[in-house]
């Protein structure tokens, strides 16, 4: 087993909802990123509106934080329940910072580690408000683990400065008191220490932030959506920012209207997006087919949550891959992309818009509850060099340069050639010239019926075949353009490969990185696009592989089945569907077993 990399620290704050757990965690995260630390977070809050436990966890280190890791190093418990419910997740050598009498008969006893008692409530009241308990905790954390207190005080000023000077004062006092209490009452009995930042100030976004922001960067100027957990933040961000850049955000009456509005706006040339979760994606299935058939590009973000039906709306699951790929009557092509972490959410969203515009096709971005809600640090994107596709519309023909001829054979009897705009012109790439309302001389009627190159309804077999092929050709173009984009880490010659998608890919990366450090022969393969699958590259990387581990958060192995039927691979599916993400330590044993050829395929 690989030794823990002690340069990474995983800290969890736990308390009642309303005690400021989340805001303390977010402040710490923000400050860490500003100082150039790498940080990734995870939070849960009670699924009912009020009451219950709130938990905020962050992991930091000197380099990219691959996942939340397996165990807590530090638990900051605002009360007994915070301890009881979280202590099982801490290593036995972990550090506990708490505000309760450990003398109480604790149901779970620790078998090692270091405890520090800090009377957070009491000190908060001393500082001027019982609500500053969380700041006392932060002060103590600075003192205990070498987190730069100046950064924190600066952070408090930035965050609360506008609100009121009084709040700033109370909070700073509370931080002081927390730090002071530790200095005066505790001797440091642990080794854990936050690693220093590299000085490159980073920004902190949640997966939902990164998608929403990425949309703006990609040129999205129309959004329509209907609120649904855990996707609502995307809409709320765009409600604030789209109008500033002359965009429009409409809260639709339901999900069907949302996607229909996007189809309408895209038809006029606006880059459009909607975001939803599983139940909404299901409702959109029919209209998505229209987008495919009428060849209208748009981006649909599905922040997956645990189902089926309403299921567990605040819990994690990767259960919508089948629906995204196969959720259509007949063949309705759509591209499916699943970002693996927050930074990827940004770039894949830009990617999604580019594909949607270039290929005139709907693109589904499969995010996930635990990704949508967790914040992580990332470098500011280089906007100058960001690849944003700008569509070239068709131009009116001139004498010397007329519209391309359509195939007389498929136009056929009873369907005369006419000089109207050949909106669905067939060509090698399947990508037809497009005009948009307002362009004179190139009027056409978009349609969800089968049609010919002039967009006229047609049901005869030769035309049907031609148009099916055209749409398929376009899909194959996407496969070709993105066919190389498969991330591979590890040993090229390995007989064991591990693969996964979305958030699970990030955890697999972590597990594989560890295994490689231990000298294991394994490779990890992550396709960037899940549909169309990058077959060439996948076949190449799977060549010579004897056993494939597929990990995903659902109970039927949706992705594993694809790997099986497309590549005939020997797949062992490692599935989890309890509403919580994988930890790398849950994956490691399967890698080991696969290497020893012990997995049952």
């Amino acid at each position: 087993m690989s030794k823990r990399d002690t340069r990474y620290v995983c800290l969890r704050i736990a308390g009642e909802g309303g005690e400021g757990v989340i805001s303390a965690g977010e402040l710490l995260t923000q400050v860490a990123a500003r100082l150039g630390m790498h940080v990734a977070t995870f939070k849960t809050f009670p699924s009912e509106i009020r009451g219950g436990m709130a938990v905020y966890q962050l992991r930091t280190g000197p380099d990219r934080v691959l996942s939340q890791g397996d165990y807590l190093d530090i638990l900051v418990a605002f009360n007994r329940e915070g301890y009881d419910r979280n202590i099982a997740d801490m290593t036995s050598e972990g550090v506990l910072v708490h505000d309760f009498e450990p003398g109480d008969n604790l149901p779970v006893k620790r078998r090692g580690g270091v405890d520090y008692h800090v009377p957070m409530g009491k000190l908060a009241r001393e500082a001027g408000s019982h609500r500053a308990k969380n700041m006392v905790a932060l002060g103590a954390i600075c003192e205990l683990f070498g987190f730069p207190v100046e950064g924190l005080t600066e952070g408090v000023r930035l965050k609360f400065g506008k609100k009121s000077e009084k709040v700033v004062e109370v909070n700073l006092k509370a931080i002081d008191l927390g730090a002071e209490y530790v200095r005066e009452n505790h001797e440091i009995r642990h080794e854990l220490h936050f690693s220093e930042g590299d000085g490159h100030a980073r920004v902190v976004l949640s997966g939902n932030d990164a998608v929403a922001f990425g949309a703006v960067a990609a040129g999205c100027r129309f959004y329509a959506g209907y609120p649904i957990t855990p996707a609502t933040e995307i809409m709320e961000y765009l409600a604030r920012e789209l109008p500033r850049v002359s965009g429009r955000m409409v809260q639709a009456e339901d999900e069907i209207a949302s996607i229909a509005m996007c189809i309408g706006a895209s038809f006029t040339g606006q880059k459009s997006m909607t975001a939803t979760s599983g139940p909404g994606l299901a409702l959109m299935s029919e209209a998505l087919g229209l987008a495919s058939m009428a060849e209208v590009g748009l981006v649909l973000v599905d922040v997956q949550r645990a189902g089926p039906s309403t299921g567990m709306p605040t819990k994690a699951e990767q259960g919508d891959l089948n629906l995204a790929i196969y959720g259509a009557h007949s063949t309705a092509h759509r591209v499916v992309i699943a970002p693996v972490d927050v930074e990827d959410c940004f770039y894949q969203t830009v990617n999604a818009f580019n594909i949607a515009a270039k290929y005139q096709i709907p693109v589904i971005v499969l995010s996930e509850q635990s990704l949508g809600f967790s914040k992580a640090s990332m470098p500011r994107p280089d906007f100058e060099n960001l690849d944003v596709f700008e569509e070239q519309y068709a131009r009116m023909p001139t004498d010397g340069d007329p519209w391309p001829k359509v195939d007389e054979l498929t136009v056929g009897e009873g369907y005369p050639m006419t000089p109207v705009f050949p909106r669905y012109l067939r060509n090698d790439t399947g990508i037809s010239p497009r005009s948009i309302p307002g362009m004179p001389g190139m009027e056409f009627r978009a349609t969800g019926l089968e049609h010919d190159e002039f967009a006229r309804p047609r049901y005869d077999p030769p035309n049907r075949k031609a148009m099916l092929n055209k749409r398929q050709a376009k899909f194959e173009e996407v496969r070709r353009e993105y066919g190389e984009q498969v991330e591979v880490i590890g040993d090229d010659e390995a007989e064991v490969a591990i693969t996964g998608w979305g958030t699970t890919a990030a955890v697999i990366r972590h597990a594989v990185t560890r295994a490689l450090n231990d000298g294991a022969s394994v490779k990890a393969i992550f396709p960037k696009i899940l549909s169309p699958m990058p077959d060439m590259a996948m076949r190449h990387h799977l060549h010579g592989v004897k056993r494939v581990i597929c990990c995903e958060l659902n109970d039927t192995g949706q992705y594993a089945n694809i790997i099986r039927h497309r590549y005939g691979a020997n797949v062992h599916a490692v599935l989890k569907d309890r509403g919580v993400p994988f930890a790398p330590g849950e994956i490691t044993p399967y890698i080991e077993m696969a290497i020893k050829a012990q997995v049952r395929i």
Partner: protein
Amino acid sequence: MSTSAEASAPRNNEPRNNEPREDEPREAGPPKERKGHRSDLKPVWCPGCGDYGVIAGLGQAIDVLGYESHRIVFVSGICCSSRLPYFFNTYGFHTIHGRAASVALGVKMGNPDMRVILVGGDGDFFSIGTNHFIHTARRNLDVLAICMDNSIYGLTKGQLSPTSGTDFVTGSSPYGSVEPPLNSLALAITAGATFVAQSYSANIKHLKQTLIEAERHPGFSFVNVISPCLTFNKAKSFAYYKKRVSVTEEEARTDRAEALSIVMSRDEQSVLGTFLQIHQPTFDAAQASMAKAAAEDRGVPSMEELIESFA
């Protein structure tokens, strides 16, 4: 494909015009001889179908309005009536059953300069599509919505429609319907449409005039056109309506409750006329004002500025 055309469409990412459009009645353009921008495709409707009258009246209205073909977008759902966009050489979108209103909203948001005309049948509008109709009307989106009402499902060969009414015998109500009819005019008024009228596909003069006024009205204009289905609704034929249809002389009301009391009296079901016209801010204009104000208050940000909210 080389020389560029004079395109009035906004290019990608080119900011929309956020100047709120004046919400005043539009002036007519010069009446041009364009034969209503009809296309080469011949309608596939049954001979004698009421929808032929609608297409005629609409073509004449468009001639008078003088809109250029590239500035019109017809949006329809799925049904016999929804085939209409194919028969005009304008931009058009034959979408899916019941969702045309929402597609139309997207079109209008995407390019507010377009004249968007929403067409469909009674089932398309008031069965599967009711929700979208209501909320699009409520928002007072600046579109013209034309329902070709034959009180039957034509395309699927004769089933009950929400406007059919009690005791009506159809393929799906062989013993007579047990469902009271939906009053689409009343529904439009209650939902928030700002222009509500009824016309008749056999009275092309009235139809044309009504469509012109409806189209000139800024905001959600709803015109219910009685348009008989000869094939599947023998009960409500032209002969049936001939005796029942009358044209009201009364002025359009500016009060919803008053307009409602008119359209809710049973006898008024076959009265042609404009029952409501109110001037209220359109969704398009309100959205534009909002965008303008937001940009003024908070500034038009570059991406570099925008990302600082995450710093």
